[in-house]
């Protein structure tokens, strides 16, 4: 159609397209502060060429819609980093609370878990003091008093750690409702996106889905799989499906061995979630790995001290001239501490049984009341490997150091992961959020930062390694 109207049509088409593009720009600006909004760019489509006076001419372009500037690889990576940062963050919070229990508080007069180290010393010191005057009632009373303090602090520590475990359990169980709400929302958005935009970016719907995915990443470890027609499946890190198409598979909870377990259908996914990431993963790692280790150490400490001290007291003779079960099996037991039936549960059950200070068997077997040989043996247990191959003080100090090391390790992990999330968020914002800056600037900034940081790291690493390994600094050329 080689007429002048074709030429007008070409110009008006271009103007219309320009007008549509401007409305997209307006939308970008209007939504600059809308959380999760992704900048859109207009799509241009060439029109079929026409012939005017024998010349082939293009008829310009038509604006056919908008495409959001997003990149799924980048957002998926951001989600993954968020999962890891959230997991180490919640685990760190739980560990910090545990560590605070075992921090000595010199200003406090009341006995507490942080005093266990000095309680151990105090108990064995009171036995040493009894050596000099084994018949002295005040010194005998002091042994019972320090034993009571030690047993009380250990059992209280075990109870407080168990209370924290119960709190974490409750916190973790409470997250299920949030996870299910998000998976239901994602499934619903999947359905809408697949029906309205099976082959194109779904704009606002996609933004909402990305926001839900980001929130879900804070809660659990997950993998996302892009499916046909712009759909998205979500599975746990071990592959248990949570969302497929427009269906979601809700998580349920049940109590197994006193703690909350998590299920999809009839499959128990608790250990999968604990290692997967997200806040839930962090809480479960603390609940199922860190806290049981702490409790086990306290149990070993209580078991070792109780068993060794009871055996030694039963091997001596009390102030009334009566020997314990180690001397004469027919005699009543002279157990100082509640005798543990096994390692597990020893700490929580630790208490002092005897109330009569005369029942401290300071004298050796068949020895007179002035004898101190059994007290010497009991006091000497302070340096014996009676707790899992270590002396009591050494074992406790190692336990506190190991706990501090785990906290430090998780702190390091969390700091690095949080920094990584910050970086990636900046890059994602530059790329897909409403931002008038060219993303190339952000890219250049990333590249420059990396290069400069590499230089800083290389120099510091060399001079620090040199200082630490050799004690002598070598300048980097």
């Amino acid at each position, binding site marked *: 159609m080689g007429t002048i109207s074709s030429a007008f049509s070409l110009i008006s088409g271009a103007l219309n397209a320009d007008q549509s593009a401007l409305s997209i720009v307006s939308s970008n600006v209007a939504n600059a502060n809308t959380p999760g909004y992704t900048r859109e760019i207009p799509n241009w*489509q060439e029109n079929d060429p026409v012939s005017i006076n024998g010349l082939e001419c293009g008829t310009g372009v038509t604006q056919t819609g908008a495409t959001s500037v997003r990149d799924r690889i980048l957002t998926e990576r951001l989600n993954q980093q968020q999962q890891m940062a959230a997991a180490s963050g919640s685990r760190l919070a739980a560990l910090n609370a545990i560590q605070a229990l075992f921090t000595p508080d010199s200003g406090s007069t009341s006995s507490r878990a942080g005093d266990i180290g000095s309680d151990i010393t105090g108990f064995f010191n009171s036995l040493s003091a009894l050596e000099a005057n084994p018949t002295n009632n005040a010194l005998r009373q002091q042994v019972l008093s320090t034993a009571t303090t030690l047993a009380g602090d250990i059992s209280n520590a075990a109870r407080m750690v168990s209370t924290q475990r119960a709190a974490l359990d409750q916190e973790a169980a409470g997250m299920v409702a949030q996870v299910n709400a998000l998976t239901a929302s994602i499934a619903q958005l999947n359905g809408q996106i697949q029906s309205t935009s099976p082959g194109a970016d779904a704009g606002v719907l996609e933004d909402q889905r990305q926001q839900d995915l980001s929130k879900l990443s804070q809660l659990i470890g997950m993998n996302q799989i892009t499916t046909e027609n712009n759909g998205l499946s979500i599975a746990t890190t071990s592959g248990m499906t949570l969302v497929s198409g427009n269906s979601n598979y809700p998580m349920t909870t049940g109590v197994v061995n006193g703690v909350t377990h998590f299920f999809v259908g009839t499959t128990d996914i608790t250990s999968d979630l604990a290692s997967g990431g997200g806040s839930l993963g962090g809480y479960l790692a603390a609940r199922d790995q860190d806290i049981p280790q702490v409790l086990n150490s306290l149990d070993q400490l209580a078991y070792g001290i109780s068993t060794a001290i009871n055996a030694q007291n039963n091997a001596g003779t009390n102030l009334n001239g009566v020997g314990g079960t180690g001397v004469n099996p027919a005699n009543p037991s002279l157990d100082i501490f509640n005798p543990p039936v096994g390692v597990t549960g020893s700490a929580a059950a630790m208490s002092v049984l005897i109330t009569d200070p005369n029942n401290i068997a300071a004298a050796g077997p068949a020895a007179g009341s002035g004898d101190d040989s059994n007290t010497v043996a009991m006091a000497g247990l302070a340096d014996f490997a009676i707790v899992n191959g270590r002396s009591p003080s050494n074992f406790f100090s190692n336990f506190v150091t190991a706990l501090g090391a785990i906290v430090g390790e998780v702190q390091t992990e969390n700091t690095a992961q949080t920094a990584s999330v910050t970086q990636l968020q900046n890059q994602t914002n530059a790329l897909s959020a409403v931002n008038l800056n060219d993303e190339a600037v952000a890219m250049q900034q990333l590249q420059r930062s990396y290069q400069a940081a590499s230089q800083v790291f290389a120099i510091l690493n060399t001079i620090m390694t040199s200082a630490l390994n050799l004690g002598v600094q070598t300048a980097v050329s």
Partner: protein
Amino acid sequence: MQTVGGQQRNPELRELVVEASLALARLDAERLEELAVCCRALNRGLAGLSGEDRAEFQRQAHGASRDMEVFGRVLAATEAHLEVMNRVHERMRGGLEYAGRRTAWVPWSRTEKCDGNH
């Protein structure tokens, strides 16, 4: 050098490492380049340290080792991000993810003969 209460003091090595990590997390290239200059100066200064100062530096190096570990991990993450971003930009240059048909900027008129400008 930092000024505290009107007096200048040398920052601990640990502070330097922590600042580098934070600057990298913020992608503050300018600050990182400044820190690189500082590190080069520090390296030069260390060559002539006395025995006492050397022991002090060793103590500071011990104190900064965990922060150095964090810095290393942030740097490794940055390298991975850089790689991802490079791929993303590479792909964006070749068209957007959802664009079935190339939707990059199209000239208003394809043929040069009819627009009168050529």
